[in-house]
């Protein structure tokens, strides 16, 4: 399988990339890791006329804490997350997630920015970013804007990123003391997309009262979904078994999974419930340690 014919440029600066975007409009596509885009082009599900390879643009691959945020550059690879000391020591949810994203070779190429910009509810980072209440920095020739993750996903393969724009950074508020987070997805085999996946971040105060809850769901809704009712039932309370059960119940009711090869709707709802409860418990455990 070989993609349809296209033209290609690898600009060395964002300015050059913006002017190429201007020139080619929506005939152009950004090429980051290429591990969603190239498979689609090989299958001819996508046939852009122009690829703008952003890999030669410096300054987009950072993973660092600054001004109260964890900042992840659009070109940071999954493998960079895995090998980052900062991520390993402070953000276990990314270690949970990256291990389950495809395989080591794909993770050497796939970028965090591309994982989100692809706009696919089957990808794993969107749910994680929802749990962490990330903000997405989107740049264009006109300047920069910041979009909260809840306003980022418009529909299947559609995001807030417009044809003249490039996603440049993801910002995650540095979690305060007493925070724990966790992610797990059920997969049929290594490299498969999630049957269902749940990301949870919780903050507990000194008395064990939940002051923050973020819960994101993978691949059980047309767009990545925040389990809002589940969050509400946790915040402001001590997290006993009953509340955790309710949070799981609400998540399973509020998602909209479709029956497919990975399982029927009922099964997926049941798995969302189980995973939500497990991830809450794991996040609590990590918050306390």
């Amino acid at each position: 399988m070989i993609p349809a014919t296209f033209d290609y440029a690898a600009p060395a600066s964002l300015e050059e990339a913006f002017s190429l975007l201007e020139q080619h409009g929506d005939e152009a596509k950004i090429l980051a890791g290429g591990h969603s885009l190239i498979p689609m082009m090989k299958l001819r599900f996508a046939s852009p006329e122009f690829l703008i390879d952003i890999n030669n643009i410096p300054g987009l691959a950072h993973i660092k804490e600054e001004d109260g945020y964890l900042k992840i550059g659009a070109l940071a690879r999954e493998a960079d997350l895995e090998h980052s000391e900062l991520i390993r020591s402070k953000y276990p949810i990314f270690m949970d997630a990256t291990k389950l994203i495809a395989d080591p070779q794909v993770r050497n190429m796939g970028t965090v920015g591309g994982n989100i910009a692809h706009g696919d509810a089957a990808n794993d980072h969107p749910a994680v970013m929802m749990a962490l209440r990330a903000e997405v920095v989107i740049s264009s020739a006109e300047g920069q804007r910041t979009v909260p993750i809840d306003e980022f996903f418009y529909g299947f393969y559609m995001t807030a990123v417009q044809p003249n724009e490039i996603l440049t950074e993801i910002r995650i508020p540095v979690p305060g003391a007493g925070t724990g987070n966790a992610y797990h997805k059920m997969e049929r085999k290594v490299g498969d997309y999630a049957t269902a996946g749940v990301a949870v971040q919780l903050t507990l105060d000194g008395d064990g009262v939940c002051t923050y809850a973020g819960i994101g769901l993978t691949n059980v809704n047309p767009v990545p979904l925040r389990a809002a009712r589940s969050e509400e039932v946790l915040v402001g309370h001590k997290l006993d078994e009953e509340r955790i059960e309710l949070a799981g119940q609400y998540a399973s009711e509020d998602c909209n999974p479709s029956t497919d090869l990975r399982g029927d709707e009922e099964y997926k709802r049941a798995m969302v419930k189980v995973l939500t409860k497990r991830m809450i418990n794991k996040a609590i455990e990590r918050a306390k340690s």
Partner: protein
Amino acid sequence: MKKQITISVNGEKHTLEVEPRELLVHVIREKLRLTGTHIGCDTTSCGACTVLLNGKSIKSCTVLAIQADGKEVSTVEGLATAEGLHPLQEGFKENHGLHCGFCTPGMLMRAVELLEHNDNPTEEEIRWGIAGNLCRCTGYNNIVKAIQYASAKMRGEETPSTEPEFV
């Protein structure tokens, strides 16, 4: 539409004309005639096409040749030296890490990077490490042993005695 690219393959520089849509694996196999790199699935699943791009293992069926412009590619043909087989190749040979051999070049190239990050991987780390490489013959046990053999040898330790399993 053709563009000129320069890639260094196993230390040798090549300047080539490619169409942007040409995949790296096709250039390696058909233009450079290095047919040790295999195409199994053509869908980023099997790992038979694994090569190193600037030292990182990637699936060359899902990378454009033009993305490798100015970079270094290492394929299985570059593993052995005048002194003999690479410790990984020796490990696969000694431990029956292959049957038909179709997956082997990809397994070897993946294992090269795996051992670079972790010179003494556990069995579990090896299994996660080769999760992107499928083998339809061996049942993996002997591949794990082959990689353990190579890691011992590369650390300068005595290589484990070889008792291959047949499953």
